[in-house]
């Protein structure tokens, strides 16, 4: 079963990391990701740009375009992983590993209903 692991954190806080701190967190996360990739369990991974770069389209009639993220929350959606796990326990284990590498904030673990990997290359 595929699980999406949605990463929430205070982006002001993440933005206050020094370049070195940021790089250190990314290195630690890469270790966890490589382990998953070797097992053939790692799907797409994305780190999103700050919510200031976000635009929201409200599907009113006519649709309304708003600056900023969909919801003003204390913690923001900053990225996500898609991981293949047998069950919730396994998904939680992955989230714990990721969390140990990158503490603070929260992960929302959501089973994936439809998944099309697509074919865009970065």
């Amino acid at each position: 079963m595929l699980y999406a692991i949605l990463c929430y954190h205070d982006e002001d806080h993440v933005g206050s990391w020094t370049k070195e701190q940021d790089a250190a967190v990314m290195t630690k996360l890469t270790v966890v990701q490589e382990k998953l990739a070797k097992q053939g369990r790692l799907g797409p991974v994305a780190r999103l740009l700050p919510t200031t770069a976000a635009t929201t389209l409200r599907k009113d009639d006519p649709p309304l375009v708003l600056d900023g993220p969909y919801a003003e929350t204390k913690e923001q959606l900053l990225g996500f992983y898609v991981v293949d796990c047998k069950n919730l326990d396994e998904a939680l284990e992955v989230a714990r590993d990721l969390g140990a590498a990158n503490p603070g904030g929260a992960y929302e673990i959501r089973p994936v209903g439809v998944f099309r990997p697509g074919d865009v290359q970065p």
Partner: protein
Amino acid sequence: MTDTAWIDAALTSARPQAVGALLRYFRNLDTAEEAFQNACLRALKSWPQNGPPRDPAAWLIMVGRNVAIDDLRRSKKQEALPEDEAISDLDDAEEQLAERLDGSHYRDDILRLLFICCHPDLPATQQIALALRIVSGLTVKQIARAFLVSEAAMEQRITRAKARVADADVPFETPGAVERSERLTSVAAMIYLIFNEGYSASGDTAEIRSPLCEEAIRLARLLLRLFQSEPEIMGLTALLLLQHARAAARFDADGAVILLDDQDRSRWNKSLIAEGLALIDKAMRHRRSGPYQVQAAIAALHARAEKPEDTDWTQIDLLYGALEIMQPSPVVTLNRAVAVSKVKGPEAALDMIEPLAQRLSNYFHYFGVRGAFLMQLGRNDEARTAFDRAIALANTSAEAAHIRMHLDRLQRDSQPRGKKAGK
């Protein structure tokens, strides 16, 4: 990340909101700063043991306020001191306070904090130093290093600036729409100054000064989060991101300037460019142009060009034309002339900058650009005169070295003359 690193980041990110709220409460900058410092000391003690609070800023405001009130009471000796535990137990209080920290206060608190640093009586360098100290929370040592002055000198500069601000009437009432927009304009200009202080560094100091650029970007993003729909703040943020994206490519190993055309574009920071382009796209939708947006749009055209020859100079010429109308200045015209030289040739560009000669008679870049146009036209003697003048006016050794490179080329080219006749 270690506990302390985590706490440092949390304190840094909470700082503008916390100091801003404490300032509104105490109406005195020193008291607010001291209250925040005391709250930070308690956080360092409490957070590693009890875990981080859900809302660090609310925690710091609450604790800072209580400690400061106690200090005030203590100094007045009016009441017995409360138990330390009574202040540290914040579970319920934090929740209540979080409720009261609604968006509107938060926004004006931070804006006010930034705004008092823009006091018109303060020279630019003092405004910047003050903002870095009060809003960003950099230490005096860090600021002194970035400004390449001694710690004592910077300490004095900040103390003087603070005294000036303390004497001024800080507007504490919630600003109206016009007032708010005026404050926003001043604050945006100040953030731009911080950035330029770092960006105008020469090669040998660029590394030391780049924290100024990073801090300016952090403040710009913060401001944009508070004013999500302001196209000029989008433009400002985009401009800083797009300029800073080129940082790694701007100087060679010896610290000499590498011009845009000669930069290794693979060293440009793609993530910063993506963010900058996204913001300028968003800003353009508002159809309310302004100087930051136009400058960001120019930077975006450079960023979008994979090779120098892909650059859309026609569009850049038009944008500089728009900027000339919004912000007439000989320097803008000089920049436009560079675009004109690419579109219509050096002759037209030279005609364009001729009328600026008097106003820019002491401006290094004027003679650098003029020399380059003359060189392209093969008027080498005049080019040499312009370059000599540029070297005399150079602000940094890197600038002078760059012009000397042109002179060397003129020297080389003039040797085998005759063989290379015609174009």
